[in-house]
């Protein structure tokens, strides 16, 4: 079952409003991708197509290579073998086609940076030079702030905002460049339930409205379960791709973990019982 995959199935019916991006070109395409560090293979033979507007949750225990997958897509880590493409061109560092939402980590309270500055960095923070203010730039930043409902703290010092407010700004920062692909690395971590909902709903709304493909790395699927089109579940070099109902089953997870794992559905939540090492700590691979 190593290499079991479902190609570009999900997502199409979930994204009725994809208007600006072509449907035929996959937003993310991995072919026979392999990532290994020394003798340790994180994953091998990974074939994955993510369509524009699709919401893919990337799940798995610590060290299974979830964050490494994002690093590959960001062009920060080269594949050991295989191909990786974003919106038709090979993944490369600093690509404009990618937006990135990190884990919530508190910004310093005394930081001299306003909400609009944080968002503006997403637009042109990678460019050299001082960057003179322009009406267009200002407009784009304000639109991005509006899109996440963060207009009222555009001028607030970012360090004095709550974790949820900071995370909204980071979503705006990732989206202000209008990326084809949004990569989220545990963006809900350390947020309370209300903010988890707002942030994931913002991301969901965006991918529906603008056809942005979303790769959402998380250890906890429940906050995003209603939005997820497909799941990529990684465990110890084994993986499975498919709709949540196909992957999040006792049989599949037991096979992936090579031990008895139970998936129990309680109302609209999934409880995974018996999966070893399901902790929250993410580190470098």
């Amino acid at each position: 079952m190593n290499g079991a995959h479902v190609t570009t199935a999900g997502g199409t019916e979930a994204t009725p409003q994809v208007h600006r991006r072509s449907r035929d070109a996959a937003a993310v395409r991995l072919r026979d991708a392999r990532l290994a560090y020394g003798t340790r293979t994180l994953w091998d033979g990974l074939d994955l197509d993510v369509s524009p507007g699709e919401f893919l949750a990337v799940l798995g225990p610590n060290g299974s290579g979830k964050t490494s997958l994002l690093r590959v897509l960001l062009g920060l880590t080269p594949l050991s073998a295989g191909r990786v493409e974003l919106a038709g061109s090979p993944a490369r560092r600093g690509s404009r086609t990618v937006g990135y939402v990190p884990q919530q980590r508190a910004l310093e309270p005394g930081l001299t940076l306003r909400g609009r500055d944080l968002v503006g960095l997403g637009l042109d923070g990678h460019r050299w030079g001082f960057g003179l203010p322009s009406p267009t730039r200002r407009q784009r930043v304000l639109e991005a702030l509006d899109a996440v409902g963060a207009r009222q703290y555009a001028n607030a010092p970012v360090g004095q905002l709550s974790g949820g407010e900071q995370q909204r700004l980071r979503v705006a920062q990732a989206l202000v460049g209008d990326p084809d692909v949004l990569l989220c690395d545990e963006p809900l971590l350390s947020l309370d339930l209300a903010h988890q909902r707002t942030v994931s709903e913002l991301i969901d709304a965006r991918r529906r409205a603008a056809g942005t493909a979303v790769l959402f790395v998380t250890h906890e699927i429940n906050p995003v379960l209603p939005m997820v089109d497909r799941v990529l579940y990684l465990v110890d070099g084994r993986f499975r791709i498919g709709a949540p109902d196909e992957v999040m089953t006792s049989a599949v997870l037991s096979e992936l973990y090579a031990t008895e794992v139970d998936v129990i559905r309680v109302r609209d939540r999934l409880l995974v019982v018996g999966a070893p090492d399901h902790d929250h700590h993410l580190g470098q691979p």
Partner: protein
Amino acid sequence: MSPAELLDRVFTFEGTGQLLALDFVQSSLLAGALLALVAGALGPLVVARQVSFAVHGTSELTFTGAAAALLVSASAVSVGALVGAVTAALVFGLLGLRERERERDSVIGVVLAFGLGLGGLFLWLYEGRASNQFSLLFGQIVAVGRDDLWLLAAAVAAVLVVLAAAWRPLLFASVDADVARARGVPVRGLSVVFAVLVGVATGLAVPTVGALLVLALLITPAAAAAHLTANPVTAMLLATLIAEVAVVGGIVASLAPGAPISAYVTAIAFVMYLSCRVTGAVRARRGSSRRAVTT
């Protein structure tokens, strides 16, 4: 000496006017103004990157470099300071990339203590005028000659040009290194660039204002500005203004008493820091709270 006499001695402007007309006084004022310019511009990023301690370590090791150069020749001091400062800043900058924060600070403490001790030994070995030794710690701004001034101006201009060219990615990397890296910003390379900028600024400042004063120029104005504005550009301009007032004001105030400038510069900077802090707190309390801190 009675307290009144003491105050009279410390705060006097008798003859300040004549002194201001002197060539070397004008040179030192210009030198001070140039240093304040570069310190004020770099300060907010030093604060944002939380590398105040590394800057302090750099200025102490600049003292070591300058003291070592003093053994060779008194005219080699500025070169020695610059070499010491850039080396120290690079070491600390690279250290910051590798070590965790807590380890980084303790390693800086260990290295700077050793360097300071070494500098003390160099000074003891030095057989020249004692005032040269003193000035490395507390500053000797009267020593600035015309040629030094041109060199200083060129170095300050170079630092400002590099800072302006790298401003956006540097700010990005300073406030959110992870996201900046994900966006393709060369975070490591910029750490090195920033270390060199801080090293050059410190190396220029130490022979003139003294190793102990560098923090008053790099940290205090930036910390003060942060209480008044969250706009990064405004903060930089404000920090530069505060640094200018402190340095130029401090030099002028030190002229008549003939005292070391460090006390005056640090005092003015400190008072401005306190007033910015109080102003910021009052503004925050006035109901409009954090959302009011706009421009």
